[in-house]
């Protein structure tokens, strides 16, 4: 079942290919060859019958070029884009020139399927023998060591740069195409990483970047074939007359032989030639009165979005300027001469279209509202320019568009309102009304608060956070240190507790004092104070061999404390505190 589906799919796919008309293109390259080189005649068939080489019903006529091989080299490509299947078959024939000079490769008639196609005859220059730099040898095989050693030919590569313009003399405002090219022998490649180009300053010129991709070509120079990379193209428009010297372009190129990952790279510096351009003034003779520094070749046409409308309705008039030249000088058109019959609303920002990186078309859309019914003529404006090819001033042809205006509703005062597309084209209709109501405060606007305050607040908050963090960290570390060294700080802690007890009275005082004394010993021995008693203290003193007089003092102090607690009254507080302090101090000394 699956196989059947596949066969069906394949059948449909093949049928799809067959259903499309084939597109046949024929190309001869290069147009300049050395006597020892070959010329390529390539036939590309898009969506043609598969597997069938094209035939030559009149036979193949190579003229003065000899076919090297009777069967062409073939290639086949299939692609599927958005579900559409397309295939391209290429058949390449190689030919060798027989003699030097300018020869014509004749037109060929080719049959593809049932249809025949003819190529155009092509002129090819055949020059002297061309020296090609031999390709770098591959890494030698270990087996070659056993064979005869053939001395290697030294490979000498070349790379140089050029900055060219078609001519050296131009008119003010005329487009000057400037190309910057790198010539390199075959097999020498430029690595984009580490390569750079410093263009000169084109002072006194308006410069437009020709925005298209880098492209390659091959040329023969001094009987050597070079690959040419056009790395930059600019269109210059001179602002002033005079002679200008354009400095060379500097290249820093990272080159390598071959494309191997291990190929040695080398950085080379190259400079193009400088350029000298002579800019001539435009002639005064024949200059039209409305000439506005437009140089080039232009045409102007107009388009209307409708042929018929009612009074009060609007129509769009699109004015399109096409051609080549200094489009920056093509300005918005003043259509004042149409105001008698139309209300006119300006075109605003023009739309520009580019071809091969250059502006070739600029258009504006104007909204027109006819004032009168009947057939109305719209004369297109005329554009005056200087044509540098013909060296004369020219003006675009007179053209007229016709529109049929049907009667519409006309209100008093001649104001037209019928069917007007509000909010679309008539700018003033959309103007927001003035602000009414209270005037509000008209005091001078206070100086706005500096946003630096916000930055300062942020800084202050961060600093406060940092200080707080440091403070808390230090405090925690101090507490931890004390915890870890209870014995060392036992007497200090005891004194702190005594200080707090000075303000207490009654049971809180007695209990607190007793607890402070026992806590002292707890701290000393790193034990909880709850488990400490006089007996425990005495045993510990005896075991440690301390002076028991200190213990006795503590025991007497505790006894006095109990007595005072039993007797009541506040008079014994101070002597008790002093006595306890002395007893604990004595113990501290003894235990130290």
């Amino acid at each position, binding site marked *: 079942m699956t196989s059947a589906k596949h066969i069906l799919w394949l059948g449909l796919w093949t049928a799809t290919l067959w259903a499309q008309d084939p597109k046949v293109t024929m190309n001869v390259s290069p147009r300049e060859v050395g006597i020892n080189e070959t010329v390529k005649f390539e036939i590309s068939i898009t969506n043609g019958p598969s597997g069938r080489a094209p035939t030559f019903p009149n036979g193949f006529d190579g003229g003065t070029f000899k076919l090297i091989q009777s069967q062409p080299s073939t290639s086949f490509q299939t692609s599927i884009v958005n579900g559409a299947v397309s295939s391209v078959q290429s058949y390449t024939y190689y030919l060798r020139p027989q003699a030097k000079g300018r020869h014509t490769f004749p037109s060929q008639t080719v049959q593809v399927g049932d249809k025949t196609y003819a190529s155009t005859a092509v002129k090819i220059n055949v020059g002297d023998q061309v020296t090609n730099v031999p390709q770098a040898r591959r890494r030698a095989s270990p087996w070659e060591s056993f064979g005869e050693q053939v001395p290697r030919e030294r490979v000498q590569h070349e790379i140089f740069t050029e900055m060219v313009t078609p001519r050296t003399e131009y008119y003010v405002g005329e487009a000057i195409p400037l190309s910057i090219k790198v010539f390199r022998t075959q097999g020498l490649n430029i690595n984009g990483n580490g390569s750079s180009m410093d263009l000169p300053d084109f002072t006194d010129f308006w410069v437009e970047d020709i925005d298209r991709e880098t492209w390659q070509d091959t040329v023969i120079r001094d009987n050597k074939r070079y690959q040419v990379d056009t790395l930059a193209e600019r269109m210059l428009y001179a*602002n*002033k007359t005079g002679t200008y010297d354009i400095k060379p372009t500097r290249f820093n190129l990272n080159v390598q032989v071959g494309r191997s990952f291990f190929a040695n790279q080398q950085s080379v510096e190259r400079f193009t030639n400088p350029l000298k351009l002579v800019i001539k003034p435009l002639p005064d003779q024949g200059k039209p009165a409305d000439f506005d520094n437009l140089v080039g070749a232009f045409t102007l046409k107009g388009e209307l979005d409708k042929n018929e409308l009612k009074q009060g309705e609007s129509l769009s008039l699109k004015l399109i300027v096409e051609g080549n030249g200094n489009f920056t000088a093509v300005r*918005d058109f003043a259509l004042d001469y149409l105001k008698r019959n139309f209300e006119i609303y*300006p*075109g*605003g*920002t*023009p739309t520009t279209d580019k071809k091969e990186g250059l502006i070739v078309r600029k258009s504006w859309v104007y909204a027109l509202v006819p004032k009168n019914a009947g057939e109305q003529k719209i004369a297109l404006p005329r554009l005056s320019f200087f044509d540098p090819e013909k060296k004369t001033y020219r003006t675009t042809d007179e053209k007229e568009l016709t529109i049929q205006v049907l009667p519409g509703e006309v209100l008093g005062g001649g104001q037209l309102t019928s069917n007007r597309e509000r909010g679309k084209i008539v*700018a*003033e209709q*959309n*103007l*927001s*009304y*003035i*602000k*009414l109501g*209270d*005037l*509000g*405060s*008209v*005091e*001078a*606007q206070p100086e*706005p*608060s*500096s*946003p630096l*305050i*916000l*930055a300062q*607040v*942020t800084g*202050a*908050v961060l600093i*406060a*956070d940092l200080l*707080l*963090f440091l403070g*808390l960290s230090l405090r925690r570390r101090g507490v931890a240190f004390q915890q870890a060294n209870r014995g060392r700080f036992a007497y200090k802690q005891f004194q702190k507790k005594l200080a707090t007890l000075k303000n207490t009275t009654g049971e809180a005082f007695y209990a607190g004092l007793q607890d402070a004394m026992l806590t002292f010993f707890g701290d000393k021995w790193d034990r909880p104070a709850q488990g400490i008693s006089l007996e425990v203290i005495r045993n510990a003193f005896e075991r440690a061999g301390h002076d028991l007089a200190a213990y006795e003092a503590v025991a007497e102090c505790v006894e006095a404390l109990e007595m005072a607690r039993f007797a009541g009254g506040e008079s014994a507080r101070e002597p008790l505190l002093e006595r306890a302090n002395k007893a604990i101090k004595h113990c501290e000394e003894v235990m130290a």
Partner: protein
Amino acid sequence: MTLALWLCFMWNSATPTERWQQGNEAYQQEQWTQAVNHYEAILSAGGGNGKVHFNLGNAYFKNENLGKAILHYYRAQRYLPGDPDINNNLEIANQTRVDPIIENEDEAFLEHINFIWQRLPYPVVFWSGLVALLLAGAASMLIIARPHSGKWVGYVLVVTALSGLFLMGTAFLQHRQLVREDFAVILAEEVAVLAGPQTREQVNFELHEGIRCLILDETPGWYRIRLANGHNGWVPQSALERI
């Protein structure tokens, strides 16, 4: 004579509110010149706000003085950033200009990256930013002092700190636009932009009223200006007015 003096006195003694009402009435009666005079009188008395500049821009627009109209719309925008009426009328006025040059590209970019750029006035942005930063500070201190205060403090810290920083950035951008005085509008119906500050210099290009430009340099009687598309040159000082 007495009557004239009295009228003159009455004219000068009118309060800004009276001028405002008179201007609005004149506008509604389509007496554009009188409306302009009333609104201008409020400004020449040293007062002014976004409403006055907006209405004055409208009156100038109706009076076919495009340069002045655009100038006052821009001034109104300083007082009332984000006001849709001002933005609308400014756009219409700009479409009416002769020169189809793109407006300030920096601002167009800012509008894309900052959706509150044209919506919130500067004081709101500033004070909101300040409050957010202070809240973020308090939350951060609470987290440091009491690390186990709860998740909500962390959320408050993140939200307020991010909003505070965003508002602070916005405030910097808005403040920069508010205080800069190097923007101007061309008022001359047509002016030649010269290569230098002398009349004998070569004409680089020509400009028409309503174009906003940046003043780069100044010399007695002349300004060096630059347009949003990078074109620059010198024009007489009388041809433009600072926003």
